[in-house]
C-alpha cells in the first residue's frame, strides 16, 4: 500500500496505481479531468494532457519534487507522494492552456451541435477554460463522413484521443480505421472507403469524448436532454445486455452502454443490443438512470428543461463564440 496526499487529503491506495486512479478513489474536487485516458482500454492516456498535476514531493524515500507537471493518468503513485491538483496555480494555468489548445481547432458551434449535453470537451471548457478565445487563425475543417451505415464521423470535432482505435484493436477482430497523417493534419479515417462493421464496433461511439463519432441510428435528431435515460437489460449471448435506453414517451430512440461517473463504460455492449432492439418490449426496464456526471446534461435535469432556458443557454454560448468572456452560467439551467 502507498500513502499519498492529494490536495491536502491523505489516502492509502494500492501500490503502482496511477495518480488519477488514486484521486478517483478519493473522489470530489481532487479528481483531475481526463479526456484520453480510459480505464478499460489498455494503453490509453498520456495524450490530451488535461490531467496534468504537480508532484510536490516524489516519495518518502526521495522527497524531491518532479521537475515538470506530470500526466496523472499515466504516472504511478509512490509511497509518500504529495500531489497538487486544484491547489497548484501552475496546474490550473497549464490546464487552461491545454483546454485552449483543444479548442483552437474545434468548431465553436456548441449551441447547434447535436452532441451538446454529452460532450466532455464542453464540460471541460466550462469548468477549466478561460471562456474566451485568443485564436484568430483559420480552423481546420473536414467533411462529415459515414464510416459504415451505423456511425457518422465528424472529424472537425475529434480531439485525437485515440480511444476509438483502441476499441477497434481491443474489442473487435479487424480494425479498419486508424489515425492517418501526422501533426495537426492527423485524422481518424479508414483511408479508402470501408465500413466499420463488427460485433463490438459500436462502442467507439460511447468512448468518444466529443461528438466526433455518433450513432446514425439515433432516431431523433434532437437534443439529448429531451430524452429520458432508462437503465434496461435483456438476455444477450454476446454481451452483458446491460444498457441505457434513451427514450421519448415509449419510443426507444437510442441504445448505449452504461457509463460511470467519469464517463467510462465498464461493460461494453454488442452491436445487436445497440442497433437492433429499438422497441421497448425488447427490454426489461429497470428505472430512470441517474446521470451524475457534472455535465451540462446533469445540470439541466431533462424534466425541467424548457425552451426558454435552452434559448438562454444558446445565447450565452453564442457570446462565447464571439470571443467574449463567458457570461455567468445560466442559473436556471445550472440548478
Amino acid at each position: 500500500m502507498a500513502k499519498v496526499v492529494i490536495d491536502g487529503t491523505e489516502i492509502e491506495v494500492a501500490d503502482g496505481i496511477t495518480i488519477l486512479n488514486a484521486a478517483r478513489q478519493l473522489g470530489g474536487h481532487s479528481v483531475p479531468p481526463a479526456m484520453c485516458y480510459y480505464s478499460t482500454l489498455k494503453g490509453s492516456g498520456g495524450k490530451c494532457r488535461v490531467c496534468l498535476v504537480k508532484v510536490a514531493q516524489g516519495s518518502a524515500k526521495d522527497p524531491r519534487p518532479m521537475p515538470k507537471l506530470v500526466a496523472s493518468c499515466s504516472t504511478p503513485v509512490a509511497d509518500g507522494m504529495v500531489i497538487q491538483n486544484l491547489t497548484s496555480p501552475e496546474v490550473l494555468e497549464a490546464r487552461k492552456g491545454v483546454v485552449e489548445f483543444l479548442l483552437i481547432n474545434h468548431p465553436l458551434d456548441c449551441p447547434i451541435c447535436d452532441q451538446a449535453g454529452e460532450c466532455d470537451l464542453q464540460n471541460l471548457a466550462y469548468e477549466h477554460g478561460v471562456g474566451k478565445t485568443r485564436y484568430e487563425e483559420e480552423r481546420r475543417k473536414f467533411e462529415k463522413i459515414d464510416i459504415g451505415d451505423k456511425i457518422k464521423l465528424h472529424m472537425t470535432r475529434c480531439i485525437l484521443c485515440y480511444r476509438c482505435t483502441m476499441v477497434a484493436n481491443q474489442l473487435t477482430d479487424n480494425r479498419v480505421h486508424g489515425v492517418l497523417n501526422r501533426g495537426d493534419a492527423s485524422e481518424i479515417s479508414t483511408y479508402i472507403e470501408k465500413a466499420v462493421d463488427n460485433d463490438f464496433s459500436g462502442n467507439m461511439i460511447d468512448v468518444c469524448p466529443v461528438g466526433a463519432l455518433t450513432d446514425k441510428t439515433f432516431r431523433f435528431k434532437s437534443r439529448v436532454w429531451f430524452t429520458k435515460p432508462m437503465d434496461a437489460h435483456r438476455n444477450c449471448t454476446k454481451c452483458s445486455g446491460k444498457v441505457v435506453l434513451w427514450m421519448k414517451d415509449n419510443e426507444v430512440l437510442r441504445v448505449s452502454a452504461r457509463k460511470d461517473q467519469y464517463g467510462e463504460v465498464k461493460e461494453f455492449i454488442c452491436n445487436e443490443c445497440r442497433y437492433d432492439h429499438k422497441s421497448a418490449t425488447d427490454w426489461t426496464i429497470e428505472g430512470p438512470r441517474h446521470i451524475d456526471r457534472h455535465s451540462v446534461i446533469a445540470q439541466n435535469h431533462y424534466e425541467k428543461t424548457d425552451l426558454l432556458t435552452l434559448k438562454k443557454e444558446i445565447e450565452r454560448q453564442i457570446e462565447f463564440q464571439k470571443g467574449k468572456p463567458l457570461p455567468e452560467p445560466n442559473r436556471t439551467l445550472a440548478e
Partner: protein
Amino acid sequence: MELKFSNNTLSLVNKIIKRYPEGKQKSALLPVLHLAQSEFDGWLSPEVMDYVASLLTIKPIEVYEVATFYSMFNLKPVGKNLLEVCRTGPCWLRGAEDMVAHIERKLNIKAGETSADGNFTLKTVECLGSCGSAPMLQCGANYYENLTEEKIDQLIEKLRDKGVRSSYLKSVEINS
C-alpha cells in the same frame, strides 16, 4: 494485372524480413514500402499498400497509418523527377528561396505541382542534413549541393534528357 514485385525484389523482401526476430516482420514495413514506391511508379497507391500488407501479414490500415506519417512516401502520383528543395533556416540563410523561385519560373509550376510534361514535381522540404552546403536539393538518392541557378539549369537538362524515373534507391549518377 495482378500487382507483384519482381522476383529479385521478392527475395530482397524476404532477406529484409529476416533481419528482425521471428514474428516481428512488421519491422520490415518502412524498407519494404521504399522498395514498393521505387518499383511501382514512385508512389504508393492503395493497391500497392494492400499488397505490402499481405506480404507482411498485417492489416491494410496498419500500412496506411504508417505510409501517411512519413514524408518520403508519396500518396499521389508524382513527376518522373521529384525535386525536393530544403527551405529550413540554414538553407534559407543561404538563398533557398531564390532557388525555389528559379525552379518555379523555369518549369512554370509552383511548389507542390508537376510540370505539364510530367517530368518534374517540385516539393519544398525540411532540413536534409546538408546545411553546410546550402542551398541544396535532393532528387532520388542524390544530393545536389551549393546550388546556383546555373547548376539547377544543368541538372534539369540532364534529368530531362535521361528520361528515367528517379528513386531514392537508385543513384542517377551511378546509373548513367
